[in-house]
């Protein structure tokens, strides 16, 4: 041991003499994320580890989601309008060049849509956004593209945000590892397990950003990420944990909400009183400022305030153990087996909260107070994902809760409501009766077809029904994320920071 120390010290002395400057060159920033990318294709635009590198930086779409107000804003399309037949016409921005030197034309847009929505590639836009929708893109003239969908999509301008526009040189039938786009940064290098480098595009159509070179790296431990900013190895560290956070760190409301799904396949969870009691029994406010970030807020619907369709009028299940016990007694009197052991499943190793084990322990203790016995079982991701599917529910299993979180990446409540409450999705939680299911499906479908205030009203109505009457889940919190930045840069995080790091918004001191 002593030997080792002396050897190490000697080695250190030699190495220190040749220690390189850790500080980056001016104009260069290093961003450290929790996980590295799996692919480098716009195809995987919903995987945050890929998206936060590519989106807005290398790849651009016809529109962008306004990060604060929600809704679509111009990007590669300068304007759009819906024709009488329901199709949409997008006017392309003139003078835009791809990184390979070819110009942005309607043909490239058509090519990008065909590629991204090709079933064979199985890209995220196809799976997430355009699932079950027929899409046809065609060139109208030298600067206009017509996109026809069946059924007609009232929020198509928002949906096309997911389709990155790529040049014809992008391989058609396979994923690329060297993405080409129109963005302010050129993809330069991907060292598969270590880093991705982007450099500023000299011929960008828009305003020239301040950062000249960005390197994305990843470290799994939050404490290591935080330390890297402190010692000058990184300029921006994402997902800093609660206990490491300090006043100078940046906090932001993310688009993510946490919840506990209540599967109603097993009694007593088929009794709405029990589901309400699960909500009333949790003193969610007690954890804020103690276990959880003081700026975290209580959730009461599947989307947060920054998403179109959020309804501020929906109430809260405030902590009320007396009411919880009363509801449980009532249910028990009606024959509900309240004493059955309850199983909660969560994803092993992942943490929705910085101190998830403690949060879960606290919830279980609170449920115990009202007489419900819950145990948590952490499942590995693949197992978790297959066991939350209704088709895999074992008829003899224990009543089951699912600790989960949801991140709305589109800025519109439709995607969240459809995937969480519509019966066509294998993991959604449904009303207790067939009529109820039918009615909810119809309501959601009418909302998906509506626009503007009508859309907002219907989505609000659906989420109010879920909250007040169907109660398929325990609503927990709208999440707050913490990032640490170095003094070298200025950066203002927004609700989409977990998904997209817009390098152009970073300025240097």
């Amino acid at each position: 041991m002593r030997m080792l120390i002396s050897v190490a010290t000697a080695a250190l002395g030699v190495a220190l003499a040749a220690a390189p400057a850790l500080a980056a060159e001016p104009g260069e920033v290093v961003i450290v994320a929790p996980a590295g990318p799996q692919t480098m294709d716009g195809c995987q635009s919903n995987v945050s580890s890929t998206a936060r590198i590519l989106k807005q930086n290398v790849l651009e779409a016809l529109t962008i989601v306004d990060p604060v107000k929600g809704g679509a804003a111009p990007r590669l399309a300068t304007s759009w309008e819906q024709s009488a037949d329901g199709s949409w016409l997008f006017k392309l921005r003139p003078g835009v060049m791809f990184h390979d030197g070819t110009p942005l034309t309607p043909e490239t847009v058509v090519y990008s849509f065909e590629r991204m929505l090709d079933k064979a590639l199985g890209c995220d836009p196809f799976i997430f956004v355009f699932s079950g929708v027929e899409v046809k893109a065609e060139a109208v003239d030298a600067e206009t593209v017509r996109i026809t969908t069946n059924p007609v999509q009232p929020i198509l301008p928002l949906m096309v945000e997911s389709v990155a526009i790529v040049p014809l040189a992008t391989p058609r039938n396979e994923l690329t590892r060297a993405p080409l786009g129109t963005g302010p940064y050129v993809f330069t290098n991907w060292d598969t397990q270590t880093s991705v480098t982007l450099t500023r595009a000299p011929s960008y159509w828009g305003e020239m950003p301040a950062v000249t070179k960005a390197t994305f790296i990843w470290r799994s431990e939050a404490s290591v990420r935080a330390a890297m900013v402190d010692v000058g190895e990184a300029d921006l560290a994402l997902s800093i944990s609660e206990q490491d956070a300090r006043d100078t760190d940046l906090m932001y409301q993310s688009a993510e909400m946490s919840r506990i799904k209540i599967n109603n396949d097993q009694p007593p969870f088929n009794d709405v009183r029990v589901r309400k009691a699960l909500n009333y029994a949790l003193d969610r406010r007690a954890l804020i400022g103690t276990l959880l970030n003081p700026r975290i807020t209580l959730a009461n619907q599947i989307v947060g305030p920054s998403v179109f369709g959020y309804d501020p009028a929906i109430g809260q299940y405030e902590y009320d153990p007396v009411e919880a016990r009363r509801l449980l007694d009532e249910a028990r009197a009606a024959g509900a087996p309240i004493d059955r052991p309850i199983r909660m499943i969560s994803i092993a190793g992942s943490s929705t909260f910085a101190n998830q084990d403690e949060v879960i322990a606290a919830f279980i203790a609170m449920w115990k107070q009202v007489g419900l016995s819950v145990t948590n079982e952490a499942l590995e991701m693949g197992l978790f994902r297959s066991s939350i599917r209704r088709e895999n529910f074992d008829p003899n299993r224990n009543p089951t809760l699912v600790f989960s979180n949801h991140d709305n990446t589109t800025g519109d409540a439709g995607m969240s409501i459809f995937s969480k409450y519509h019966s066509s999705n294998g993991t959604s939680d449904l009303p207790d009766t067939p009529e109820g299911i039918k009615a909810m499906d119809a309501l959601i479908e009418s909302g998906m077809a509506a626009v503007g205030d009508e859309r907002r009203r219907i989505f609000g109505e659906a989420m109010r029904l879920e909250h007040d009457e169907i109660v398929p889940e325990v609503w927990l919190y709208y999440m707050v994320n913490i990032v640490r930045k170095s003094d070298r840069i200025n950066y203002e995080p927004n609700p989409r920071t977990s998904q997209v790091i817009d390098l152009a918004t970073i300025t240097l001191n």
Partner: protein
Amino acid sequence: MLKFVVMRFLSGGLSLAILVTLIFFFARLTGNPTDLYVPMDASEAVRAQIAEQRGFNDPVVVQFGNFLADLARGDLGQSLRYARPAIDVVADAMPTTLTLAGLAIPIATVLALVIGSLGALHPGGIFDRIAGGATLGAASLPDFWLAIIGILVFAVVLRWLPTSGTGTALHWVLPVAVLVFRPLGILAQVVRTSMLGVLSSDYIRAAEAKGLRWPAVLVGHALPNAVIPMIMVVVYQAAGILNGAVIVEVVFGMPGVGRLMLDSIMFRDFNLLQAVVIVTAIAIFIAAAVADLLLALIDPRLTHD
């Protein structure tokens, strides 16, 4: 001797075949990877389609047949996760782990020989107690704990070393140091124990009685005999260092084989898992074969099986 060498290689190939077959079927028991490659919100139709396309729906035996056919052509398949040939991904990761092991194992071995022998000279003496206790204590610390404390102390507080990553020689100091402790603790114990055994055996006592001086006894007579059990343990530790490498590579963000294995299991990237298992197994097999040869040279009785 030649027969022994040939047999050793044949049996190694057999072990490898057993391992690969086990891993192949075992990995597929972990479930259909569709759930991991298709977002949770995907519709049923999309899920079915993806599973079909990637061949997840074929009977496992058919998949195994395809795998063997590809293997015969030297093709380990595409990595699902990285969308490139699995063997390329492994080849990229190999140097990092080899460097980690190649630095940690020799350092641990040399330190263990020194500490263990000195301890055995005066069992129960001051040096024996302190050095033995310290090496064992350090070896009994969880390696992720050592790694994070190492970062906090040497990178954050003292600022002598970079926190993590690769690039300069300094980046290797902490990961290698963390990896050294476990084998060092064990090896020092092994050396000390076998030295004690050897030192109390008749011929050493005879050598002592002849009036030979201690260093001569130690280096000339005791050490070679004590090395035999050590070689085997060194090989075992070299194989085991992959365990440590998983943790170290995860914490320090190093692009190595250990992390690759972990990821490939977590993401059900079967082709990648198979490729990485085959490559590392070959590496470990070669190390074990060399050790066996060494042992056989030192102690020919071991060749009789």
